[in-house]
């Protein structure tokens, strides 16, 4: 079989953040339930911005919605900071990497090293939009841009290769 080559996959931070978030919420659907109380924070923001209530009013009558308001405002900042930290720490993401997929497994070559995995080391993969995340652990993986696949290979063939080798594609 001719190996599938992704000659230079570079992930921009917005793409990484978007794909990571979709992956996180798809792989942990319970997060949606945890986020539901945040709706009261959004409502508190609405009543504050429209002048229906003041901060002292909310503190007196509904401390919980004020707490949720803090969560609604603070969570995106913490999330952005955490994703940015992960992105900066991974050379394969921001400096670009070459991925080669074959019957033997996955080979990754980037500016600060190279890794080779047999398929036994990749139990799961997620296909999100034009991205393929190859997971080597529950939350550690490689981001492959299927648009960067060297021709004449097609994305469907890559997914078929993964399934042939027992990788669970979600």
């Amino acid at each position: 079989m001719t190996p599938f080559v992704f000659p230079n996959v570079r992930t921009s931070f917005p793409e990484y953040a978007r794909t990571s978030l979709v992956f996180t919420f798809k792989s942990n659907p319970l997060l949606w339930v945890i986020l539901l109380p945040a709706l009261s924070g959004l409502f508190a923001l609405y009543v504050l911005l429209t002048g229906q209530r003041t901060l002292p009013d909310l503190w007196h009558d509904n401390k919980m919605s004020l707490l949720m308001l803090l969560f609604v405002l603070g969570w995106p900042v913490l999330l952005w900071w955490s994703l940015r930290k992960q992105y900066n720490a991974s050379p394969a993401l921001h400096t670009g990497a070459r991925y080669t997929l074959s019957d033997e497994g996955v080979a990754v070559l980037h500016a600060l090293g190279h890794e080779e995995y047999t398929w036994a080391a990749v139990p799961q993969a997620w296909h999100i939009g034009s991205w393929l995340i190859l997971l080597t652990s529950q939350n550690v993986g490689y981001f492959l841009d299927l648009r960067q696949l060297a021709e004449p290979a097609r994305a469907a063939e890559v997914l078929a290769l993964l399934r042939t080798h027992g990788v669970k594609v979600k």
Partner: protein
Amino acid sequence: MQPLVFADVRISYPEFQKINQQHALKTRWLRFLLLPALVGFVLWNTPTESEDATATGVRVGATLLVMLASMGYAVFNFNRALKKQYAASPLLQATATYTLTENGIRVESPIWRGTTAWAALRGFRHLNGWLYLVSSSAGGYLLNPACLVAPATEADVLALLQRHGLRPL
């Protein structure tokens, strides 16, 4: 310099659990307090009809009890996630040999191998007797000093790490 070799390193689940618990207590202790604090805040601010001393005592006791239970749940949930993480990662369960040289760290295992330059590592931690080389916020290398091949010593390893700019985190 002679390469420093950690031969046949394998981490069992109990060791992985202890290392992560220690790591979490050092770096993410606030997360364990978040849920009890939130639950306590909600209960304490829930309006009640009676405000006498007995009712307040019951309320304080009940709030503390529920806070304690929610902290227990947070710990239980953390351990459950660790178990899931270990079970889902063949890399963690594989036996590997790590070779440290002036160029970086080389890994050889039946299911993966590779080389990483020192510039890709952020620092190191001592956790439950193991040496954890941090390569990113989500990954790294776990080295067992007991597997270090003689005559090399842990001091040689630390000297090499520090020579390449890795600091204790």
